[in-house]
């Protein structure tokens, strides 16, 4: 089980997406998943070993590291990627449900099981809203947990068993900050894509509905 599973999942979703949805999948693949695996993971690999405090007191480094990094950036990033990709499964399940229904009744109930209309449209819109909500939630979590998106070179720590206020140095803070900004930028891009897809779908289908009603009235 690895990121390849998420990649296969997203490839499956691609089939039932709109054009903007496919761009979203491409952005998630290339700029988030691929960058995470080939670059970001290695930066945070030895973060605990390389976290150094100006003290010989045993346990002080551990305690300070735990205080400043309750959940490591890289783990939050991974969770964000997984959570944000999962709502697309709702669409896949709905299409599978439609196909199952057709098989069960042994007749063609839908013009095209993969077409985004009726119930599938609602599911698609819900998945978009969930995706956007989760993206925003994770960005807010990052911001609140780490006091903004900055990573300082030096943090001062005075938790027991550290005897006094001790200087602790974070490893590769600049590189981590650059990748954190990259993460924020791609998240915002994905939020914009989701919102534009949402507005496009709502607009398209309300126009369709309005025209149908208009035709009915005329008849």
């Amino acid at each position: 089980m690895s990121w390849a599973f998420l990649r296969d999942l997203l490839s499956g979703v691609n089939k039932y997406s709109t054009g903007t949805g496919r761009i979203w999948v491409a952005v998630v693949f290339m700029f988030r998943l691929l960058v995470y695996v080939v670059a970001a993971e290695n930066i945070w690999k030895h973060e605990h070993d390389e976290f150094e405090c100006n003290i010989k007191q045993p346990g002080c480094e551990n305690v300070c590291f735990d205080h400043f990094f309750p959940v490591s950036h890289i783990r939050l990033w991974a969770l964000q990627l997984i959570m944000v990709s999962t709502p697309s499964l709702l669409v896949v399940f709905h299409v599978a449900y439609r196909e199952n229904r057709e098989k069960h009744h042994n007749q063609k109930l839908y013009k095209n099981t993969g077409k985004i209309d009726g119930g599938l449209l609602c599911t698609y819109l819900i998945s978009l809203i969930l995706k956007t909500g989760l993206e925003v939630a994770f960005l807010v979590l990052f911001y609140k947990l780490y006091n903004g998106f900055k990573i300082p070179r030096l943090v001062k720590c005075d938790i027991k068993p550290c005897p006094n206020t001790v200087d602790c140095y974070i490893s590769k803070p600049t590189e981590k900050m650059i990748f954190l900004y990259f993460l924020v930028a791609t998240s915002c891009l994905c939020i914009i894509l989701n919102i534009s897809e949402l507005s496009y779908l709502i607009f398209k289908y309300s126009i369709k509905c309005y025209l149908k009603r208009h035709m009915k009235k005329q008849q």
Partner: protein
Amino acid sequence: MDWGALHTILGGVNKHSTSIGKIWLTVLFIFRIMILVVAAERVWGDEQDDFVCNTLQPGCRNVCYDHFFPISHIRLWALQLIFVSTPALLVAMHVAYRRHEKKRQFRKGDQKCEFKDIEEIRKQRFRIEGSLWWTYTSSIFFRLIFEAVFMYAFYFMYDGFRMPRLMKCNAWPCPNTVDCFVSRPTEKTVFTIFMIAVSSICILLNVAELCYLLTKFFLRRSKKAGNSKQQPDHENKEETKQNEMNELISDSCQNTVIGFSS
């Protein structure tokens, strides 16, 4: 998800590229991505552990390392490769859109549609003309820009392409000016120069491809203005033969790459 996935994604674009585009793709996978994965990553693997400063002051090493390497070479290269490969996706999306339109026409039962079944539409190779020409040319243009930007960023950040053995650091909390020693500086310099050289080759290939496409465009325009219909058919046959040969060459290259990248 790794470089192999990128290979799968870009492999599809290969079919619709020019011969120079196929060479560029091969150079990208063999001389850049493969070298990055099998060699360069090992050379830079222990970069912070073996970065040694002549002081016992805790924190000085961390701070000096961060000061001299704001972003590691290896990460910059990985980002460069990702950004440089992305414009090819534009072409892939355009081709997918065209295929989708043809499938729609076919399903509607349009008599203009010349295909017998959907499989043929899926396997069809589109010629680089019309709107696809514009997409393809802009993707090459973006590739060039990204390559140039990253090379400049590299040069600017590291003051050239040499990795020095010794760096003098006096950032706080280092007590005075402290000598810091980089691990494997010669090996890193060699790989840096290699990657820069291959980047330059890729830039040249992209420029050549751009010139080729522009020349083809202007020639086609002038031919449409004057000449007979028979000549383009003859040229089409020659072009298709050339492309088939190039596909065979690049397919065999890609098969060897698949073996390495996994």
